């Protein structure tokens, strides 16, 4: 059995209006991460990622060695986001403009190795670039290393360069992130006929997965299984409205976890709230599961992209400990499934979903019954 023994999260519910970009919009920004970024001495995602590499987490790993191998995976999302490539980002006085003095370490395996060395990891260091599915996609790798290759512990660090002038430009232009000019008539939400879309958000998460060992802390959850799929779609930026990719990932994860569709009672959706994702994810869930309640966290912390899968899983675990599955914010219709109200947490397994551009769909199953 694999346990999620520890996680450390960083995100913010606070939003800031970024007005000096072509598509002005709010974003969930942690201002301290932009310190020394204009000179290129600090790269905001590194500053954020290093806040979740806490002394407590490092000391736990160093003080409690495991018998088998230890791996480190950096789930870095779409590693290519760097604002100095933006078509419009020519103004170095712009609020979020920054330089990168050492570009070869941004979100690369060199950076992964730098952080892995803090944990004295010598058995496996790798990096994943599966866009916004990245942190859930690597759960398939965690499962593989631990079930097939003699690993007793895998540390997953996840975060990407999710808020910069290029991402604001790209998602704003695509109509995916909610623009400031539309906020009067619409708020971020998901699976709703009136409110739609998301703000971008900075976020990072450190998760430690382990097999049971003598020094293990009381775990946060059992990790039951994960699967990542593509779907039959020629458009790498699109999603099939019938949710084929989501369904294949859900059914794959159920198969690996040896669960049935009746065993899953709670779903943390990808929940971006775009029209295409609403259709795809809802259709897939209604087909692939039976009785469940679903929530989404992107309306609270923004879309943290590559980090979102595991970061939002951590937020759900915190809410389940409080005994609730939280509502999807800004719903305008009463809904007992895609929740318009806080519901009591039911018994059973929970499912986390994520999707990424480039045709990637990930599902991971957990249980709080440890």
């Amino acid at each position, binding site marked *: 059995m694999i346990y999620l023994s520890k996680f450390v999260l960083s995100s913010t519910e606070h939003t800031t209006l970024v007005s000096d970009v072509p598509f002005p919009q709010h974003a969930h920004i942690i201002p301290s991460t932009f310190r*020394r970024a*204009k*000179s290129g*001495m600090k790269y905001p995602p590194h500053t954020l990622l*290093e806040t979740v*590499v806490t002394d407590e987490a*490092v000391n736990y790993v160093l003080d409690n060695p495991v018998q088998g191998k230890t791996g480190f995976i950096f789930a870095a999302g779409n590693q290519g986001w760097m604002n100095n490539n933006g078509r419009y980002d020519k103004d170095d006085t712009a609020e979020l403009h920054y330089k990168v*003095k*050492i570009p070869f*370490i941004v979100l690369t395996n*060199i950076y992964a190795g*730098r*952080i892995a*060395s*803090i944990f004295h990891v010598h058995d496996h260091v790798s990096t994943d670039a599966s866009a916004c599915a990245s942190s859930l996609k690597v759960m398939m790798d965690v499962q593989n290393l631990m079930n097939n290759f003699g690993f007793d512990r895998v540390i997953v660090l996840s975060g990407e360069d999710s808020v910069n002038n290029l991402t604001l430009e790209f998602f704003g232009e695509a109509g995916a992130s909610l623009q400031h000019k539309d906020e009067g008539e619409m708020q971020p939400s998901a699976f709703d006929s009136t409110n739609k879309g998301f703000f971008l958000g900075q976020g990072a998460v450190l998760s430690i997965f382990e097999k049971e060992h003598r020094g293990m802390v009381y775990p946060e959850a059992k990790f039951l299984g994960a699967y990542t799929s593509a779907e039959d779609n020629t458009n790498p930026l699109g999603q099939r409205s019938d949710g084929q990719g989501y369904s294949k990932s859900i059914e794959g994860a159920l198969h690996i976890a040896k669960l049935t569709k009746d065993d899953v009672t709670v779903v943390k959706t990808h929940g971006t709230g775009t029209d295409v994702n609403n259709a795809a994810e809802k259709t897939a869930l209604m087909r692939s599961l039976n009785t469940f309640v679903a929530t989404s966290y992107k309306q609270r912390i923004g879309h943290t992209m590559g980090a979102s899968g595991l970061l939002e899983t951590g937020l759900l675990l915190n809410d389940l400990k409080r005994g609730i599955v939280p509502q999807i914010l800004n719903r305008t219709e009463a809904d007992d499934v895609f929740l318009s109200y806080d519901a009591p947490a039911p018994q059973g397994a929970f499912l986390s979903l994520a999707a990424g551009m480039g045709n990637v769909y990930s599902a991971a199953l957990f249980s709080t019954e440890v």
Partner: protein
Amino acid sequence: MDFIELFDACVKETKPRLDKYTTPTSLDTTLKEEDIGLDSLDLTLSLILVMDVYGIPETQDFNIPTESLKAVMDYMHENKTRDFDSVEAAMKEVV
């Protein structure tokens, strides 16, 4: 401005964790990993910050002598375009 103090401040600004780092006590300290606990990436990042403090433009040949802290200091002093009275003032200036 005390150079050892400045170098130490730059390391602390750039290195995520300091458990392997030994704060230098003399300009004769070598910059070998086994002596000071900085790997090549730590050292590069720290020296870039020191260069920024002294207003030294970056060149394609990053050939700062690193036999000792004194060699680094001499290079910085020979090439500097600005200086500060204190480390605190210097670190505030590098935004």
